[in-house]
């Protein structure tokens, strides 16, 4: 029932309605009142239940409170400049107070904003942190607080942060992989830059990302497969960090029934840390082989071959794909310059060791100097492609050696962008192709495309480096 009075107050265009039995909550009514007041030509509006307080308010606004209205009645009071505005506003009241026509579906919660919050939404065992270095500690610590192991992909993390993270993880029986850990394989899942490897008997503990990728790819090729590949971060075997994650990763793999052999992939550790790790490995029931990269030590391929021997498995002939368009360095008596253009730091270092005394320059495009403000060359090849073009057309070098690292996280089809540059090359190009048949990029297809463009392609980085050296020597 609606009682209406118009123009009864001292203002000529007032309207007061009393709607008995029409209940709306005060917020709906306040909102409706605000909307009415915002309308053109409306100078005042009140939509409220006719409580004593609201009747008083109505009087203060200059309206004449309707007699007999009570708390169960709805008051609608509108003041407008003219009758048209008043009528339009009155019509709008019904719309404003009508129940919303369609109920919107309840939305799913917004994405989690912290690692801890996300950890409550999934049955997780691991956090993968790749936020900028200064913030990595906070997220990694949050992961440890949530009971998760952490892989810290981020670089530029201060060593003090690394120490606190690794100590905290050790107290809680968790593992910190990193900082600056690019590669891990856990239970068949590749984390960061990792290759699709068949499950197998060999566990890796790696302080080096591409070193780990080389070893796991060769193990896959040989049929041995990989149980898990745990990264520890490049600084883990320094005197300061003292192998904290390495020791933990070794113990975890020792306890893992699937792992029959452990390979440690690293640069040579600080001497006292090396002793510490070696004495720890003697207490394990699983044999541990060291694939340490350094002068006079086994290269990674040889280390894998020794591991196969330990497992009683035959060593395959590592795949290679000869260049379909051989480019011969012009006859020379002195060795020419070997130019290395690498995306993987460890592969670059191994090649430099193999190049030995012959003239060479090796550039690691994954180094911080080249990744500032741009993605890693495994994701964004632009910078390295430019250099490759320059070096192979009118450059000073006799041969170019480069790596192409496949796997999860890497660019989807590296050969597609490399092939046109290689086709134009005036000097031989040797490619170390690190990957597996199961990788999303398909190693063999990549190899064929690169070889067709004129590159000599090797699955073993050491073999690629030796081939490049032989070309540079003109032999």
């Amino acid at each position, binding site marked *: 029932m609606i009682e209406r009075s118009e123009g009864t107050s001292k203002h000529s265009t007032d309207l007061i309605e009393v709607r008995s039995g029409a209940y709306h909550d005060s917020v709906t009514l306040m909102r409706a009142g605000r909307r009415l007041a915002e309308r053109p030509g409306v100078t005042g509006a009140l939509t409220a239940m006719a409580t004593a307080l609201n009747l008083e308010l109505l009087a203060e606004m200059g309206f004449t409170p309707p007699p007999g209205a009570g708390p169960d009645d709805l008051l609608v009071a509108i003041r407008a400049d003219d009758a048209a505005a008043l009528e339009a506003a009155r019509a709008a009241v019904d719309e404003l107070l009508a129940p919303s026509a369609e109920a919107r579906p309840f939305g799913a919660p917004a994405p989690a*904003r912290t690692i801890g919050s*996300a950890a409550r939404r999934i049955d997780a065992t691991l956090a993968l*942190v790749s936020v900028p270095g200064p913030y990595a500690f*906070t997220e990694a610590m949050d992961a*440890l607080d949530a009971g998760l192991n952490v892989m810290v992909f981020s670089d530029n993390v201060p060593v003090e942060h690394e120490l606190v993270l690794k100590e905290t993880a050790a107290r809680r029986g968790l593992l910190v992989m990193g900082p600056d850990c690019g590669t891990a394989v856990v239970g068949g899942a590749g984390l960061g830059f990792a290759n699709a490897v068949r499950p197998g008997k060999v566990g890796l503990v790696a302080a080096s990302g591409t070193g780990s990728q080389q070893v796991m790819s060769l193990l896959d090729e040989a049929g041995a497969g990989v149980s898990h590949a745990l990264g520890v971060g490049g600084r883990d075997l320094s005197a300061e960090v003292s192998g904290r994650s390495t020791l933990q990763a070794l113990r975890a793999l020792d306890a893992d029934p699937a792992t029959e052999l452990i390979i440690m992939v690293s640069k040579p550790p600080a001497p006292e840390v090396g002793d510490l790790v070696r004495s720890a490995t003697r207490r394990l029931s699983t044999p541990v082989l060291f694939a340490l990269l350094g002068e006079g030590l086994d290269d990674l391929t040889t280390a894998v071959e020794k591991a196969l021997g330990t497992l009683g498995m035959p060593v395959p002939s590592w795949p290679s794909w000869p260049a379909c368009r051989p480019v011969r360095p012009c006859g020379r008596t002195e060795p020419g310059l070997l130019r290395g253009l690498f995306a993987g730091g460890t592969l670059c270092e191994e090649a430099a060791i193999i190049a030995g005394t012959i003239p060479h320059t090796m550039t690691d495009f994954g180094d911080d100097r080249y990744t500032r403000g741009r993605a890693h060359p495994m994701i964004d090849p632009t910078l390295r492609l430019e250099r490759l073009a320059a070096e192979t057309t009118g450059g000073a070098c006799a041969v170019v050696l480069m790596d192409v690292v496949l796997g999860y996280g890497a660019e989807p089809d590296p050969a597609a962008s490399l092939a046109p540059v290689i086709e134009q090359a005036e000097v031989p190009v040797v490619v170390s192709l690190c990957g597996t048949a199961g990788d999303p990029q398909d190693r063999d297809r990549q190899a064929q495309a690169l070889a067709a463009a004129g590159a000599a392609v090797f699955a073993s980085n050491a073999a690629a480096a030796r081939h490049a050296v032989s070309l540079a020597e003109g032999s």
Partner: protein
Amino acid sequence: MHSPSSRDPVRGSATDGGGPGNTGLGGLLTRDIGVVTAGTSVLADALAEQAVPVETVDWRPPAGSPDDLAVVMGDRRRTAADAEAVRRMLNARPHLVDVRPAREVLGIERGTFLHAGPPLAWDRASGPMRGALIGAALFEGLAGTPEEAERVLRTAPLDSCHHHRTVGPMAGVVSPSMWMFVVEDAEGGGTAFCSLNEGLGKVLRYGAYGPEVIERLRWMAGTLGPALRDAVRARGPVDLRAIMAQALHMGDELHNRNRAATSLFVRELAGDLADAGAADALRFTSGNDHFFLNLAMAAGKVSADAARDVPGSSLVVAMARNGTEFGIQVSGTGDRWFTGPAGVPDGLYLGAYGPADANPDIGDSTITETTGVGGFAMAAAPAIVRFIGGEVPDALAATQRMYEITLAEHPAFQVPILDFRGTPVGIDVTKVVRTGILPVVNTGIAGRVAGTGQVGAGLVSPPAEVFTQALHALAEGATITP
């Protein structure tokens, strides 16, 4: 929505003790892998490509200093301290045990006034705060006119309610002759106090001090207080936590809507009030939808105080506004206040009032949000969701957002529409700074001119700097040893 730990009241499961001998790594090598990612999306995509279950964090760089964050996150005491502090907050069992005059329970002298929020001097007080103080001075008989009252108040001792285990809504002014709810924590043994709610309209807490306001205060001190005291003493302690838990199932969020809780509370005392012939008191309490607010606040205060002074904890134990500043206190930093300018609420206005009439944020009622109700329980109160922008999903989102900045889920306070999930409780300074998500606060809006009263109601956010200040103080006191 999958939330495996939603039934664990206190989150953050990891504590020391796995030990170096434990090679299990939380089942890393034996369980099916699930990964939480924060940062570069290409890494999360690579996992999704392998059909690995991934939960991606919507990570954004925090506004606060990364160094302060790292220091506090690295504090050896933090996880255990936070767990202990929030455990105490959740375990509190607030009971209304008595109703007594402030002079008796607080020991404050005639001429002394307590107020809401962090400490405040008269010369910085806002309109409604001054109005309420003037009203209290008139009520105490310290002055005959508002002008005289102002002269008295310039030199009168003022102190924060929070320094006296007390909270007060809006201006929160307490003077010796006002009657107080006495709320005890049956678990932790603490006590907290709050004044009696005056109702809506022209009331002291909104800064009104007209004759009807003073007259009502006199009636409350002379009739209502003693009647409630007698009824509570006759009935015995009233379990406030039980009432609050039920009210959340009945559409209250216990800050801007207390209708259900008030009804439940009146039901508890109705018989004893009737026995005593206190019909006026019964009529007054049952006719005031906000009567329970002051009890919810005292319950919040006694719970929050139980969580105080845990060294190393970044749990917020008080959020309060004095009409000029918004302040917080943190468990690990003692009684220190971290303050910033109080914002003007974004809300809906009564009658012809508008934002220009609004005073900056005021009141201790944010103790409700501090303890996991109020804005944090917005999803439980669909009837008033239009305060936060108009739609029920927004209310759900407000409560869900608060899980991002809290340490626990309340074991007793549940939100039916979220499948009876416990309300988000225990604001963590580090989480606020990390996410930039500020606590959502439901509030009434006072008129900025002394004597006006309430002009609206709505939502307000604390100033972000109070959390970065608190983080810095926690960093200064942190214990870091690798």
